[in-house]
């Protein structure tokens, strides 16, 4: 398992993508080391364009943009990653249960999943945030539900394929019980494609989180998030365009890095066929 994963990052593009992701995560963890505070206003310093003192400039309250960007990374990444983790856990449980028990339960899950799957995630998330209320928790739950269908579908398909394999029959004829087969044989084998697809979905989740933040539904001020910063910057786009340009670039570069690293993992683990399925 370890060997092919390492092999994926030998080529320069996946390696650079992984390096960027590590840097962003490190910056998010060490955000407090910045010489500036993300929430202290210094109105005399407002609207400074990028300079040696403020590498990415300052915003309308004179706050250092780079500092807010890496604090924003903390919010945006933790919300997206947690949301996808919840979504994967629930999706795997639902998908495995549907594939394992079959019958009316399977049909109910499949119909619901197919229905939600054909809706744009942004619509599902917008409605859910309207119900739960704005803020990081609301965003997290909304993103988790928006991607639930994807993981349920994938896990169900995986378990259904694996169920017919010879090694499952062998385990069963050796006297293994249902729980043992499900937790020891089926789920571990279904894990790799689900995890890679979770990684790719995290990229989409970052964009979705930014979109909700842009509508003012994400993390509430003064806590910075990439979407929230772009929301504030959109009103000032003609006066101080750097306030909106940098958070957007940050989102785009990070999501590209996630996609490139994820594609490399797909290629090295040889799970493309399993992951994409028949188109």
């Amino acid at each position, binding site marked *: 398992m370890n060997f092919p994963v390492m092999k994926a990052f030998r080529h320069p593009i996946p390696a650079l993508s992984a390096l960027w992701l590590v840097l962003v995560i490190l910056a998010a963890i060490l955000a407090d080391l910045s010489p500036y505070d993300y929430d202290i206003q210094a109105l005399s310093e407002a609207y400074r364009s990028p300079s040696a003192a403020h590498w990415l400039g300052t915003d309308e309250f004179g706050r250092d943009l780079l500092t807010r960007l890496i604090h924003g990374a903390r919010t945006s990444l933790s919300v997206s990653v947690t949301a996808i983790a919840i979504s994967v856990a629930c999706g795997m449980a639902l998908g495995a249960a549907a594939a394992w028990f079959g019958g009316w339960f399977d049909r109910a899950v499949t*119909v619901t999943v197919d*229905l939600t799957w*054909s*809706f*744009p995630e*942004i*619509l599902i998330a*917008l*409605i859910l945030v*309207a*119900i739960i*209320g704005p803020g990081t928790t609301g965003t997290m739950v909304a993103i988790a539900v928006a991607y639930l269908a994807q993981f349920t579908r994938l896990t169900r398909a995986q378990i259904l394929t694996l169920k017919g394999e010879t090694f499952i029959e062998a385990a069963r004829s050796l006297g293994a019980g249902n729980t043992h087969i499900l937790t020891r044989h089926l789920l571990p084998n279904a894990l790799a494609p689900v995890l890679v697809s979770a990684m790719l979905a995290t*990229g989409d989740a970052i*964009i979705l989180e*930014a*979109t909700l933040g*842009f*509508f003012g539904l994400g993390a509430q001020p003064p806590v910075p998030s990439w*979407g929230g910063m*772009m929301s504030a910057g*959109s009103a000032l*786009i*003609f006066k101080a*365009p750097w306030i*909106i*340009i940098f*958070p*957007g670039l940050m*989102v*785009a570069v990070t*999501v*590209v890095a996630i*996609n*490139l690293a994820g594609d490399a993992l797909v290629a090295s683990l040889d799970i493309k066929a399993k992951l994409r399925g028949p*188109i």
Partner: protein
Amino acid sequence: MMSYLIKRVLMLVPVFLAVSVVIFAILHFIPGDPIDNLLKVGSSPQARAEMETRYGLDRPLPVQYAIWLGRVVTGDLGTAIVARRPVADLIAAALPHSLALGGLALLFSSVLGVVLGVVAALNRDGWADRAIMGGVLLGSTMPSFWLGLILMLVFSVGLGWFPVSGARGWSSLVLPVLTIGLGGTALVARITRVSMIEAAGRDFVLLLHAKGLSPLRIQLGTVLRHALIPVVTILALRIGWILGGAVTVEVVFARPGLGTLLIKSLSQHDYPVVQACLLMLAMAVMLGTLLGDILQAVMDPRVRASLS
């Protein structure tokens, strides 16, 4: 073919009912009361009760649902609580804008996506392939509202080529169409490229090569035709997605449309309008899926055979 068509259309009825129940139910979980927006501060409880009776909000939920569904089927979408106009009028005013934007964006992303996908597949693993795939990946990872604002900054403010916002004339459509279209191009290009490469490896293509046809003619005449089946299916599925995904872009460019209407009525807790917007978007998604299945059956005899 006809029996398949009838079966497929009939399948939409239970789906429509399920969607309508969900849309109706969800709206009643949203906190906040539209009546609060209408009543003056300090109004008596009586005035409130009167208002609730007038809009039928005091009846049990299943009854409200039955009444609502009965009206929807006959084309009556109710009266907007805050805007105080028939919802059908609001929708009718918004829909053409959304359809024009969504249709053009779909056209743009399918033409550009198929062309880029074909060029990439013909130069598989060459520099053109890498540049195209890298470019479309970058295009699909930029948040659409951000891309819209940056395009606005460069082309409207910097160069002055297009109006900043609004929906007057064709020139105001250019930037929104580009913004939505660029995001969708990536998916179309990726699928075109993958299915071109897959189709090129099939036995009947080998036979054509053996017969001595020119490679370009085989690629464009045979391989592309096969490769387009999944592309068309995905494009039909995108119809609903483009209308729904246009929400952010419509807001950014301050264009009238279903998205702007939805966001506005959501913040005003105007249930009838939100319900109608969601219903329209849901119907677009369902019709898109239907169209995708029908097109697939028309293009691929195997699908027809397996279903009849």
